[in-house]
């Protein structure tokens, strides 16, 4: 599977915005996720939860929750480092 094929399934969720755009965001590829919840508990601001729907493998993939429990995403990258399935594809932030 190429990068392009993976990215067609991106999920992104906006948090605190600056001129209507989120300061930081994370791209999760749901088809790669196995619902292990490591990112859910690793995220310091609680921005990730398991989706109610299922991916093709039958797992509940991780997605951003629209209400971060401890605050907005800060692009800290902890979810990226902890994901064992390389499903957290990119961590992005607004350029200064």
């Amino acid at each position, binding site marked *: *599977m*190429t*990068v392009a094929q*993976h990215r067609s399934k991106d999920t*992104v*969720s*906006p948090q605190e915005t600056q001129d209507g*755009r*989120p300061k930081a*965001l994370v791209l999760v590829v749901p*088809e*790669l996720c*196995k*619902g*292990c*919840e*490591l990112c859910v*508990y*690793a995220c*310091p601001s*609680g921005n990730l939860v398991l989706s109610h729907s299922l991916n093709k493998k039958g*797992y509940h993939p991780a997605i951003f929750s629209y209400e971060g*429990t*401890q605050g907005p995403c800060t*692009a800290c*990258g*902890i979810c*990226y*480092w*902890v*994901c*064992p*399935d*390389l499903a957290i*594809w*990119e*961590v*992005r*932030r*607004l*350029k200064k």
Partner: protein
Amino acid sequence: MVQIQDDYETKLGQTTGWTGIPTHYCPGCEHGILTRLIGLTLEEMGLLKKAVMVDSVGCSVLAYDYFNCDHIQAPHGRAPAVMAGVKRTHPELIVFTIQGDGDALAIGLLETVYAAIRGEPITVFLYNNSIYGMTGGQMAPTTMPGQITTTTPYGREVESTGNPIDIMKILSPIERVSYLRRGVLVPQPVKAKHGLMYQVKNILDAKRIIENAFKVQQKGGYSLVEFLGTCNVNWKMTVEESKHYPFDQTIKQYPPGVFRDRFGIEGKIL
């Protein structure tokens, strides 16, 4: 839907060290983390095109699907010998393997020890989860006394099967060994104000350890890096439960640390 435009910069992106093929590892298994860390390190150090991975027999047997480099399949336990054959005929290649506790410490103990004795400039990553994962949860050389596995269903008895072996104790006196390091790949569960949280400091340390190991190979030295990992499926635990076990049990038997460092490659970071 948010428009992602050029105003954003990628702070962390996926590594080209990974082929993009989804892994077969169980949910929560640190093999996947190890895959990303090694792939990323090889990419950052510019070693991907010179890398030859020897695929050992264990959960990492399908590594040829995941790591974006050349691959050679080795028979069970023989990876250090195969790596020595490659490296001695082509010293410019970077050779490494990921072995499970059975591959490196049971059937392959002779190959592991002799490669260390000769100081072959190879890199061994040993994934220690105290069990035989791929074959369905049998006793490993690193299984704890009393631990329940499918071949020790009443708990491991040391009177019959001996004590778990610590490869660091076996290899650290060997003269030509350059770098022996045990790390923990498991995110550490802690109690936060709002409930359970995982800390990933171990994983960031693991990346530095992997870099060190490849630097040691570039300097011509032998390195063996042991990472403690989990196996929630064969330990019969949930992902969350399995993250506690290494910190409650395994590190008492297998403390992390530096066991040999001939080149002084470990900085003050850790």
